[in-house]
């Protein structure tokens, strides 16, 4: 198989990129996959030019994001060999992707062409530039510790990590080994940038080894572990998609105009659930319902207010400034709907637990023949209001509550049955 085309590499004399690409080509030859089944995903920078010298498939995307494209390709076509070619710049701007790809362990092979600086844009320092190095952006010496590519990938679960240089004779074998290895494999390949880093720091092949030594960056195969394959096990389904609850009209409502009912309580009070049951019941009663919920993003605290608009005609939206009735179940909810209640004036009733709202129709749980659990109080109060306001038959509410099944159904049924008794006749 031929993997190289007839174009000559464009790299500067002495640049390590050519040697690494020759090693990559040798690895391809050893492995023997068809060129169309190999995808080189190149990043940005001089190494980003690499794919153009191969006959394989290629994806040349944005700076730092090559691992994300490679992940998408591998997820869609796990049978393909996907090789990422990126520079040390990519390990900075795309550092999050490197770490998370290691953690995720899709079968990608990442070659970091690590020439210790930004060779395409003028030799600026990168995440891997050694301490003290002089670059146009570290004119008085680099102050930052370089990124340990292999250590970072390894500690986050990568299956395979190797560090070496473009001068290593075993580079082709190591690339082939990495490609054969299940899971995420990374090769941190140090090399010379003759245009900038070598010139600015009198840096040589010997300095590569010395710098690794100084930093305590070990060489060779540093990580080699078995990892689980990334695969979702989901039950197959003939009709996938969100479960659909389709209602037939089995009851009748006499409501002649849109009616807005606001249920205001506290987090944990199953306010939204109670309103949702009322909406379902309205639909089986031939009405159209819309429900808009309002609650803090910290869902287990503060207010929970549901606005339910019921209408004989389709409801445009459930944004209501002046409701027709309000149920108040907790001080948190009252605080939120107080302006609405004031705006409502005498237009409609307020139902409230005793002591919450002056002048309201009192919802008194002690009137119930059986004790209503706190969690079902909202539903009982909604049943009481629906009954008192004549919005639709309470039997419709009982019917839809019975549909939910399980241990909740019984408690909910009790609440619906007891609801109308909670307010005085």
């Amino acid at each position, binding site marked *: 198989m031929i993997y190289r085309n007839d174009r000559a590499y464009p790299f500067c004399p002495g640049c390590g990129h050519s040697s690494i690409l020759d090693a990559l080509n040798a690895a391809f030859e050893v492995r023997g996959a068809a060129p169309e089944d190999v995808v080189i995903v190149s990043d940005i920078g001089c190494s980003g030019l690499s794919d153009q010298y191969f006959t394989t498939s290629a994806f040349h995307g944005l700076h730092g994001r090559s691992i994300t494209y490679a992940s998408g390709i591998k997820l869609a076509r796990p049978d393909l060999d996907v090789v990422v070619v990126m520079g040390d710049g990519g390990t900075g701007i795309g550092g999050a992707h490197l770490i998370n790809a290691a953690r995720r362990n899709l079968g990608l092979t990442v070659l970091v062409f690590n020439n210790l600086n930004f060779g395409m844009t003028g030799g600026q320092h990168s995440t891997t530039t050694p301490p003290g190095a002089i670059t146009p952006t570290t004119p008085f010496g680099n102050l930052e510790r370089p990124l340990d590519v292999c250590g970072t990938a390894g500690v986050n679960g990568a299956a395979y990590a190797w560090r070496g240089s473009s001068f290593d004779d075993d580079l082709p074998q190591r690339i082939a080994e990495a490609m054969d290895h299940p899971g995420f494999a990374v090769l941190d390949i140090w090399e010379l940038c003759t245009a900038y880093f070598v010139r600015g720091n009198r840096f040589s092949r010997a300095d590569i080894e010395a710098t690794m030594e100084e930093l305590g960056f070990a060489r060779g195969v540093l990580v080699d572990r078995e990892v689980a394959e990334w695969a979702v096990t989901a039950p197959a389904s003939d009709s996938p998609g969100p479960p659909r609850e389709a209602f037939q009209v089995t009851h009748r409502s006499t409501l002649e105009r849109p009616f807005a009912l606001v249920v205001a309580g506290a987090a944990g009070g199953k306010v939204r659930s109670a309103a949702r049951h009322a909406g379902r019941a309205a639909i089986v009663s031939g009405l159209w319902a819309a*429900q808009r919920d309002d609650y803090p993003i910290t869902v287990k605290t503060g207010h929970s207010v549901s606005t339910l608009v019921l209408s004989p005609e389709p409801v445009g939206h459930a944004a209501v400034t002046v409701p027709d009735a309000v149920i108040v179940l907790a001080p948190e909810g009252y605080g939120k709907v107080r302006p609405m209640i004031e705006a409502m004036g005498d237009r409609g009733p307020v139902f409230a637990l005793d002591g919450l709202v002056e002048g309201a129709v009192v919802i008194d749980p002690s009137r119930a023949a059986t004790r209503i659990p706190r969690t079902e109080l909202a539903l009982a109060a909604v049943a009481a209001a629906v009954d008192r306001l004549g919005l639709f038959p309470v039997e419709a509410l009982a019917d839809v509550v019975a549909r939910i099944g399980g241990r909740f159904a019984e408690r909910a049924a009790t609440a619906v049955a007891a609801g109308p008794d909670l307010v005085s006749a």
Partner: protein
Amino acid sequence: MREFTDGSTAIVRGALDAGCTFFAGYPITPASPILMMMMRELPKTGGVAIQGEDEIASIGMCIGAATAGARAMTATSGPGISLYSENIGLAIMGEVPLVIVDVQRLGPSTGGATTAAQGDVQFVRWGTGGGYPIIALAPASIPDCYRLTMRAFDLAERFRTPVFLMTDKELNLTMNTVDLADYEPLPVRDRVAAGATDPMYAFEPADRVFPMASFGGESPVRFTGSSHDESAMITKDPATVGALNRHLIEKIETHRDEIEMVDADLEEGAETMVVSYGITAGAARAAAVSARASGRRVSSLTVQSLWPVPETALREAMDGVRRIVVAELNPGLYVRELERIAGDREVVGVNRVDGELLTIDEIGESL
């Protein structure tokens, strides 16, 4: 038969019925329900759903998967679109079919996560460098969410380009009643696969959309986000680069008639027309109906394809109209498009930026 549901659910159903095979997203209110449903439902179809480590990874994975033959979708909100920006440009340049759902929330910045807004309508059009066209659709109801999601997949394939579905917190999270008969599935074209001898890209004739080669086929495929020739090799040759960039424009501009969509309710002899889209459209239409009931002649028009601007339908609807009212939940963004084509007609914006929806009365006052 009716159901009690929300726009997020309808979008997921639309995506599955359109043959979506890949989804990647990152949690963000109010788009998260789409992510959660896709994570649960897509694997059951043999598709792949994944939560990326961030928005950039998510759209990147979608683009990668699409080039390997997948029908891909992602969903986010305004802050996520900001992070998608550079990759949107990549999808335009690389001619990648991709559906991007933008469940808009109140901005700027983190703004109001659980608050409805329509503040991204210009952002998605101009949100990446270069100024090249994209397609954006705006559903105004839950059945619309289903239908236009399918339409988005179809247009993405037809034009090999990212297509935005512009919804908002209210449309996606508010429950509403839908008659099942109102869900109209739309046909979704299959991807036209390139033959073994077809070039990777082709630019002439400029308006023609060429079959797409995917990774994993019978011959090697090259993809690039750099200015390229027909073999996806990087080039600076002005003739080639000019042809490429003209092609990116003309493949959409020349075929606007295939994309432009409106839902017009025009009144004979109307001097006033209210234009709206998305979540605001319901109130705008109702305001027009109400104005007519009091003896005024008012037309209403709901824009369904925000981009390209449905200029043909808008110009026709403007005939005889002296005053155009544009209702939208932002400081006045899409109104610019009406001003651009309205000639000497008066163009008035009705806007809210406090997180509340525009009411029928508020719009009615301007009619």
